[in-house]
């Protein structure tokens, strides 16, 4: 049983509050290069938080989150490319590929308003359609994971092959203005960093609220015993569709923010390999913990940045080792070391999973 809530600040919350304060004043204490890295990785942590909802709480593993990341990132990058152009001009790579007219699905994101709406709507709408097709026929588990992986592959292949429309293998890069602001000015980069931090904090509290709500309870129930849910008269499908779509929306925003910080979006950031790397951030941080996902994203990406610049060939061994370690030794991730929140019942999960696995092989 958890102790009754007390009025005093518990030490864990104090640590996180201190971390948040440090993050707020970071632009004044770290170098521009490191600030850019922190901004990027905070943007990525929105993807991680989406996976906590989908994979940790919903029990649905998606190996295709790169698709939603890419949809958000490309919508913004298309807008940024057009923002730099005069009337009637085409992005440079289109001219090189002999495209003479701006496609309609580019033109609609010329206005900043439609671009911002597009970042929210395009990934979410696609996620609703895709996950509804899957979950209405009760396709889940390993099948679902493998189909989402194929989706990631198809998306990246399509982007690469349509050189004249998507920028092909190089993706979309080299843009300078957002809402008329120069993206290269230190004041703009600082503002973008704070915007990212604000969105991360909002997403954190939003997810906490969602997971504590009735919806969260139903989602966990659907994960642990979908047949029992059905016997009680509920359809688990819609709960999973909502979880998948909310995760996709977060991932789309994450992709757009990442594109702003990194200055590029390309197929190499959205395909099969990056999609599964997104899962490892959460596996390391803790798939049942929203804070764990943020921490995991930051830790794994900083490690990647340091190791892959110093010893590039070592990084893939390290990453491979992390995958194995995360599931064999740390099924609850780093968050597992720091106690559990009230809705987490890893021990019960484990028991149920074993029980179901024995049943399933009949």
């Amino acid at each position, binding site marked *: 049983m958890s102790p009754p809530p007390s009025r005093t600040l518990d030490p864990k919350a104090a640590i996180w509050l201190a971390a948040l304060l440090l993050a707020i004043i970071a632009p004044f204490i770290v170098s521009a290069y490191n600030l850019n890295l922190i901004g990027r990785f905070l943007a990525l942590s929105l993807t991680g938080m989406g996976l906590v909802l989908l994979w940790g709480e919903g029990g649905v593993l998606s190996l295709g989150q790169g698709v939603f990341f890419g949809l958000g990132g490309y919508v913004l990058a298309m807008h940024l490319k057009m923002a730099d152009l005069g009337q009637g001009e085409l992005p440079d790579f289109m001219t090189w590929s002999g495209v003479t007219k701006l496609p309609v699905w580019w033109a609609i994101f010329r206005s900043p308003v439609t671009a911002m709406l597009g970042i929210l709507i395009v990934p979410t709408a696609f996620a609703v359609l895709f996950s509804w097709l899957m979950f209405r026929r009760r396709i889940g588990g390993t099948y679902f994971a493998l*189909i989402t992986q194929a989706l990631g592959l*198809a998306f990246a*292949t399509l982007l690469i*092959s349509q050189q004249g429309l998507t920028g092909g293998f190089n993706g979309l890069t080299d843009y300078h203005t957002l809402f008329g602001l120069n993206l290269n000015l230190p004041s703009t980069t600082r503002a973008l960093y704070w915007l990212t931090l604000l969105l991360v904090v909002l997403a954190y509290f939003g997810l906490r609220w969602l997971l504590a709500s009735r919806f969260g309870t139903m989602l966990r129930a659907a994960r642990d015993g979908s047949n029992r849910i059905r016997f009680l008269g509920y359809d688990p499908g819609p709960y999973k569709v909502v979880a998948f779509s909310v995760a996709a929306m977060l991932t789309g925003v994450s992709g757009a923010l990442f594109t702003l910080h990194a200055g590029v979006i390309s197929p190499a950031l959205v395909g099969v390999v990056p999609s*599964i790397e997104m899962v490892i951030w959460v596996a390391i941080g803790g798939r049942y913990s929203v804070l764990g996902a943020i921490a995991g994203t930051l830790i794994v990406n900083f490690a990647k940045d340091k190791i892959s610049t110093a010893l590039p*060939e070592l990084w*893939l061994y390290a990453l491979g080792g992390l995958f194995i370690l995360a*599931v064999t030794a740390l099924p609850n991730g780093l968050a597992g070391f720091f106690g559990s929140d009230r809705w987490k019942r890893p021990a019960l999960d484990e028991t149920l999973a074993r029980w179901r*696995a024995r049943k399933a092989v009949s």
Partner: protein
Amino acid sequence: MDLGFIIGQVFNGFSVASIYILAALGLALSFGLMRVINMAHGEILMVGSYVAYLTIALVPGPLGIFAAMIAAFAVAGLLGGVLEVTLVSRLTSRPLDTLLATWGVSLILQQAARDIFGATGVSVTAPAWLDHTILIGGQTLPVTRLFIMAVAVAVLGGLAAFLRSTRIGLLVRAVNQDRPTAAAMGVDVRRVDAAIFALGSGVAGIGGVVLALLGPVTPNVGQSYIVTAFLVVVLGGLGSTLGMTIAALMIGLFMALSQIFVDVSLAQVLSLLFVILFLQFRPQGVIAVRSRALDE
């Protein structure tokens, strides 16, 4: 449209399907028994390809390719067995975690291959008797492609005979049908799991030899086929070998025939769409195993 061209594409479809069969057979076998998918299966194909490269360098002659198959089967089978005993068997109650752990193995194997053989490809010289074309019904067909089909048919036939008439095959079928009852009757289900995992990996090793005939062997050679092989298993339905074979033919032919109208990347997108739509009508895949159990 030119009829000869269409017939050529049908032939290509069967030839691609043969590769998917060799790549997906091991996946389907162990998915049927354990409900887990080995994400490092593509790298087992890759190991098979590199073994072919080494063996053919050692045994040049016209029969080098068969020596390569035997060697690749043994090495890949051993690797699969080790992987099963050390990692996969510990995770069978958590199929999604198995995906992640074996993906880690695949990254390590890829990087190891890059360190040993270099990132650029090595090429395998096919024996002279494979290196020409023959004319059948007005079509010029490369002998290599026919050979690949023959290998796929031989492997499928051999496996069917193995499962049907050996003692191990009997045990495998028993565990496949009803794992707890088989265990209660004294079948060592863990050993059956390991044996089948090793056998499936050995088949993937043979698949790797075949891939080495088609193009340069790179550390990523397995990755280019494996995602579609996973789709084949999904479409085939609960690890059924027959279902997997039909699914491989369906996807192979669909890809080849859609390339009459669209380019290869669009064909890939369309084949995924085809699988998703097919699952709308048959969510259990081509062959659904009948069961009264509520949880699959």
